[in-house]
């Protein structure tokens, strides 16, 4: 190099400097993401270790046991409801009809009722008003018509074909009572369901018994949770206070240092007041720190946990016994039967959960230290992403990663055949003129901004997809009709449309790069054009096509606006056990979470750092994909 300061050197240096900026930017992004994200690990480690010290961790385990139980009890509830409606539906109709009337009174007749209620008691005026009001209610309620009422009842009790006049009459009576009693729903109405439940016989008993069986565990959970929460909140608060004291102290040192340089007495005075202000802030913060002896605070939790094995033992006996009893019940409703069968399937899973959790709870101690490795593992393999929580925030990547991957996979399933097929067609079969139109047209698609596609998805495609999925032709597919309008399939289709041009362009290049001799040789052997394309040229261009697919994948997984708008943003691992129905589920994505939660994050907070960690993961994925593609392409060129 040398210190050659002639103009040519300067010019060259200038250009070169700009060229090296590319490396600088890449390294800078890398470093910056890393620097901002790395703080996450100690911060998360601290949170996890607080949760362990306070006993929140064990509370989570009990909660998990409860969740398993709730899954069963929810199913049983549904079986119970279906059966109840099948048997005593007629009685329930009254309740539903009444509710419609009550709604009508609230919406339409509120002024009239208020007018009546405002009149003084025991006047003739009141009595007159009462008669008119009752008549008004009567006519308004009858005005709804049987057809309308049926439309409200049939979704719940499908077998209903008509509503008897008696039902309507008594519903109106109750509605009148409601109005007269200052909008107080008559007790009889609330009583209807309990009455029916009492008449449900064996199923009712099972339902009741099962509900009661969880009481012990729920109580235990509550004891542990309250106790743990109290300690955890204090620990969390102390951590924050210590941080702010740290900051204040830094400020104090700086400000005191300045004092030495000042000569003006007035300035010294203001400086001194400032210093004292900071000092009071520090003292204030210090006074807020509540020292808590975790060893002592954990004692009640251990005490409560001693009862845990017994509770579980009981559950293990009671739940299967009750489910066993379900088999003896003659269900009238086919849905109830299905639910009952589903419960039987759930049972072994539930017992497994109990076994697992019981061992981990009995092995649990608050004393084991949380290692950095555990924090890293909790991030990369965590199953929950729960930020802004009232209790413990969880940053687990798996729900986001699986959502991103699933959407990308679905998108690739659509995009790859389309784009590769198009590339073969345009490259091998289309006439020169046709190709001349098709190629720019497809490249043109690439320029559609993603936010436009997202809005289009919300406005048009989402609705179309939901309507199509409801068509009887598709009803044999599990999960159809799709329940949620925003889901994996919608996001996948839109992204497939985005990725197709990228894949097409690169794949077409790859096909173009296959030496002409291959084609000529194949044709000379008597192969048809299609055989040549599919069996000779395609394999020859395979590495390039794979690179094209990977780059398309990279583009899809990094896409933000479309998934933010149409993926449904449900931070839960998609339920793959449902087979193809998984496509109808909403998911959350890595890109979506950054766009959605950056507002919550002030620099330096754990959530800020966690978002940078997610960014880092995305960055790494894109780097890996790019590097592999370049390797492939470089080899191909050789």
């Amino acid at each position, binding site marked *: 190099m040398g210190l050659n300061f002639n103009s040519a050197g300067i010019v060259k240096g200038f250009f070169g400097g700009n060229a090296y900026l590319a490396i600088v930017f890449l390294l800078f992004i890398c470093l910056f993401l890393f620097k901002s994200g790395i703080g996450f690990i100690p911060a998360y480690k601290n949170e996890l270790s607080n949760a362990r010290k306070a006993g929140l961790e064990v509370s989570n385990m009990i909660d998990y046991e409860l969740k398993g139980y709730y899954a069963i009890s929810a199913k049983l509830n549904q079986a119970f409801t279906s059966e109840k409606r099948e048997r005593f539906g007629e009685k329930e109709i009254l309740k539903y009809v009444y509710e419609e009337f009550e709604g009508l009174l609230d919406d339409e007749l509120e002024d009239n009722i208020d007018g009546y209620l405002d009149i003084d008691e025991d006047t003739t005026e009141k009595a007159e008003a009462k008669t008119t009001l009752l008549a008004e209610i009567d006519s308004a309620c009858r005005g709804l018509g049987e057809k309308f009422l049926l439309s409200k009842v049939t979704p719940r009790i499908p077998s209903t074909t008509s509503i008897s006049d008696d039902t309507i009459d008594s519903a109106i009576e109750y509605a009148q009572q409601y109005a007269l009693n200052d909008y107080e729903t008559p007790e009889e109405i609330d009583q209807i369901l309990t009455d029916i439940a009492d008449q449900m016989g064996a199923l009712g008993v099972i339902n009741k018994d099962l509900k009661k069986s969880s009481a012990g565990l729920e109580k235990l959970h509550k004891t542990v949770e309250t106790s743990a929460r109290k300690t955890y909140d204090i620990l969390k608060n102390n951590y*924050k206070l210590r941080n702010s004291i740290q900051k204040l102290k830094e400020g104090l040192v700086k400000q005191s240092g300045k004092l030495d340089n000042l000569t003006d007495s007035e300035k010294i005075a203001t400086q001194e007041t*400032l210093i004292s202000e900071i000092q009071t802030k520090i003292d204030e913060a210090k006074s807020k720190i509540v020292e808590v002896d975790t060893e002592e605070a954990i004692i009640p939790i251990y005490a409560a946990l001693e009862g845990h094995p017994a509770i579980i033992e009981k559950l293990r006996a009671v739940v299967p016994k009750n489910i066993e009893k379900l088999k003896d019940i003659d269900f009238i409703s086919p849905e109830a039967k299905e639910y009952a069968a589903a419960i039987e399937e759930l049972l072994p899973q539930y017992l497994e959960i109990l076994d697992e959790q019981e061992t981990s709870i009995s092995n649990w101690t608050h004393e084991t230290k949380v290692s950095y490795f555990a924090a890293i593992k909790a991030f990369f393999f965590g199953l929950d992403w729960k930020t802004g929580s009232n209790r413990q925030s969880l940053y687990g990547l798996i729900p986001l990663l699986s959502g991103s991957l699933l959407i990308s996979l679905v998108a690739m399933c659509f995009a790859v055949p389309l784009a590769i097929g198009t590339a073969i067609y345009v490259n091998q079969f289309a006439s020169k003129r046709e190709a001349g139109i098709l190629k720019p047209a497809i490249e043109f698609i690439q320029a559609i901004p993603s936010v436009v596609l997202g809005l289009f998805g919300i406005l048009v495609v989402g609705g179309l997809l939901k309507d199509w999925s409801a068509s009887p032709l598709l009803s044999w597919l599990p999960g159809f009709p799709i329940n*949620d309008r*925003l889901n994996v399939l919608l996001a996948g289709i839109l992204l497939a449309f985005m990725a197709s041009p990228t894949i097409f362009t690169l794949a077409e290049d790859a096909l173009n790069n296959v030496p002409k001799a291959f084609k000529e040789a194949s044709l000379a052997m008597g192969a048809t054009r299609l055989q040549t394309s599919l069996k000779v040229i395609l394999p020859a261009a395979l590495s390039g096509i794979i690179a094209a697919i990977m780059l398309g994948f990279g583009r899809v997984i990094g896409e933000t606006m479309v998934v933010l708008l149409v993926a449904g943003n*449900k931070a839960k691992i998609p339920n793959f056990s449902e087979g193809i129905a998984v496509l109808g589920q909403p998911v959350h994505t890595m890109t979506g979470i950054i766009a959605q939660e950056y507002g919550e*994050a002030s620099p330096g907070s754990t959530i800020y750092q966690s978002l940078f960690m997610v960014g880092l993961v995305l960055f790494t994925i894109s780097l890996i994909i790019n590097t592999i593609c370049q390797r492939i392409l470089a080899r191909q060129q050789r």
Partner: protein
Amino acid sequence: MKLKSITTALAVSAAIAATALGQSKIIFKGSDTLGNKLVPQLKAEYIKTNKDLDIEITPQGSGHAFSNLLSGSADIGMSSRAVKQDEKDQFDAAGKSLVEHVAAWDMIAVIVNEENPVKKLTLEQLGDIFTGKIKNWSEVGGADAPISSYTRNSSSGTYKSFSKLGMAGEDYGSDCQKLEGNQQICTEVSKNVNGIGYVGLAYSKGDNFKTVKINNNSPKISKLATYPLARRLYYYTVGEPTGQVKAFLEFATTAEKADEITEAVGFIPSKAGEQSAAK
């Protein structure tokens, strides 16, 4: 690099000086509930008499209010929840004081699709739906269909106040779909027969969805005292407001015209709200 956070002293004076400047711009950041209806309308009214003033509004959730107030990139933070202790601590640590102004009263309305026959829920049922304990409408007296629950995202204040008021402080279940703002929740609920969501009172009227009674109370101004999901909406400033900010806040919280607008938008003016809540 150790010189992080240059000193409280400077920060204190910065906070005072920044608001004291006769600025021609007020920057609003924060709550979607306030920032998409009430504040734009107040702004439209206010700039009629203050033509030179520029008012910028970016509603993306209450979380934005505090992070932006702290970094000085907002003059007024809109929030649909009271400031959290740890946010307050951050301001304390920075030597800033946060001043609260009640903007209006709101009742979080729970909405379901028009075709959904369910008309009322108890608070407990509502909580169980959003924690994920109840997964089917038949469990709360509806049709036999899975529930799709729509919530705001975690930087929203409504997200937090709902979990406090409606779910007894429990966490949202992982089945909730987090949407971007009140209006998107309205849209999705109106398109999904099995959907349920919650929105600010000003957003509770629209096509194809209806509000649900909670504990036999519908979200109406007359029920403010008994409706379990009533809450205040706030403006926050760093230090006592001065200059333009002060003038605007005075207008927004006390002027009669502002109360009219608040009511027209669908919220309850703060004075009337405090009175009926006291009953």
